[in-house]
């Protein structure tokens, strides 16, 4: 497999930002009451991640190491402001539900950690694909959680009635998000145990 593809795959499953690295957990619980919200926020993060990775890797020789964190924050905040102006035009009613979290992308740990660990060291093309992979992995995580919660909590998917009744109302309550993420994480751990034979230590929780 070529390296760029491997970088994308890496962000998708082996280092999935939500379930394996356990970064940026707040949006993973907060906006996933339905798939649509998760998808929109996931795409917003994908956009910010790719563009800030590209920006940082382009200008990395100009950023003094001692002030790198504030510099990264400013770059991320810039792209967040851009997406925060684009989204309300594309999809106004879904945006209303995730508005606060779109602004909070600035403090999502996943983006700044990718800039620090990857984009500040590697050239342009791998940084782009790494950002793409992480963004896709994040979107996948949000959609999976959203699908499970919407299906069991409201009996719907993408807003369409599937079951016609609500099997487990608790899933769309605040508590349900925590339960679902906990169980998906445990499933990922179990899968890794099946394939590699050793019990992984789950992410740093940061």
């Amino acid at each position, binding site marked *: 497999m070529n390296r760029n593809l491997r970088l994308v795959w890496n962000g998708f499953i082996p280092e999935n930002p939500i379930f394996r690295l356990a970064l940026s957990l707040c949006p993973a619980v907060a906006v996933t009451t339905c798939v649509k919200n998760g998808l929109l926020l996931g795409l917003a993060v994908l956009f910010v991640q790719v563009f800030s990775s590209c920006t940082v890797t382009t200008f990395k020789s100009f950023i003094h190491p001692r002030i790198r964190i*504030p510099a990264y924050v400013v770059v991320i*905040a810039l792209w967040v402001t851009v997406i*925060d102006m684009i989204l309300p035009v594309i999809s106004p009613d879904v945006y209303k539900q995730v508005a606060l979290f779109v*602004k909070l992308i600035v403090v999502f740990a996943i983006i700044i950690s990718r800039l620090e660990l990857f984009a500040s060291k590697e050239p342009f093309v791998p940084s782009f694909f790494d950002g793409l992979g992480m963004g896709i992995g994040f979107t996948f995580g949000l959609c999976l959680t959203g699908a499970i919660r919407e299906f069991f909590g409201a009996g719907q998917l993408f807003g369409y009635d599937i079951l016609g009744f609500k099997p487990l109302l608790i899933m769309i309550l605040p508590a349900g998000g925590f339960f679902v*993420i906990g169980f998906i994480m445990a499933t990922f751990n179990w899968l890794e145990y099946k394939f590699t034979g050793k*019990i992984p230590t789950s992410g740093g929780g*940061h």
Partner: protein
Amino acid sequence: MKKTCSTALMLLIAAALWLAPSPGIAADAIGTGSFNKDTGIEIVFGVPVDKSWAQDPANYSVYEKPDPDIRIPVKNVELDPKGVSAILRFDQPLNVSAEYVVDARNITSQGKVLGSRQFLVKKSQAQILFTILLGAMLINNFVFTKYLGLCIFFGVSQKKETAIGMGITFTTVMVLSAIMCWALYNYVLQALHLDFLKVIVFIGTVAIFVQAVDTILRKVNPYLFKKLGVYLVLIVTNCIILAVPLINADSNHGPFESLILGLGAGLGFALALFLMSCVREKLELCRVPATFRGLPIAFVVTGLFALAFLGFSGLSIF
């Protein structure tokens, strides 16, 4: 000395008499009412009024102070046995942080028409602030019902000692940065019509402020710095610290409201952190299934906490 005292006392009594509501109903005098839950308004007439008059909803017109044209329909009126006060009931819940006006037309007592009277209904500032504090701390706890600050929440809740240190540091920084961001937003960003820059400005302010506290604390109180210094840097990545100024800006909070929201958010976070650390210390000694060890079980425990905090919804003191 004694003479001045007694003069002052007499003046006070005179003032009190003057301020006390007169027993009769003066035409067009303005009275006050109070909210009864969020679907009722209680007004006091001062004299016993006729039951047939008081229980007719058509005699009252109720509106929010800024728009007198939008009348709110009164569902029914409950008069107390003495006929001195009444509770107006409404179909839709009222906005208890707004100001309402109740117009009572042709108040009738013992068959005689006494005139009309207006009642102003408003919560006092202290009540509003207390509601915000309680809301941010318990009812809409930022960790358990708004899911903010989870990264830090799971990161530092392993030990009670670190949880307490983080809680104190976070509350202090939160209150101060909330008030700073409020000032910056109202006096700089809004004045220059730069609202769209608020994300960049707020996160910049918080980062600079945390760096400043770090530097000052290191020089002024090295002991405290040793205890709390590690947590200071982590605070910048906490969503709550950015969410509170954003909420303040979106809902046009005043300086005190911003301060109290910051305080409530900080205290609520500290409470959540402390509760979680107590459980996780015990969890270390339990036999958890191997795949659930670490974060997955912490998530399930947090879910249980969130369920428990649902019990606070509907809590209201005033």
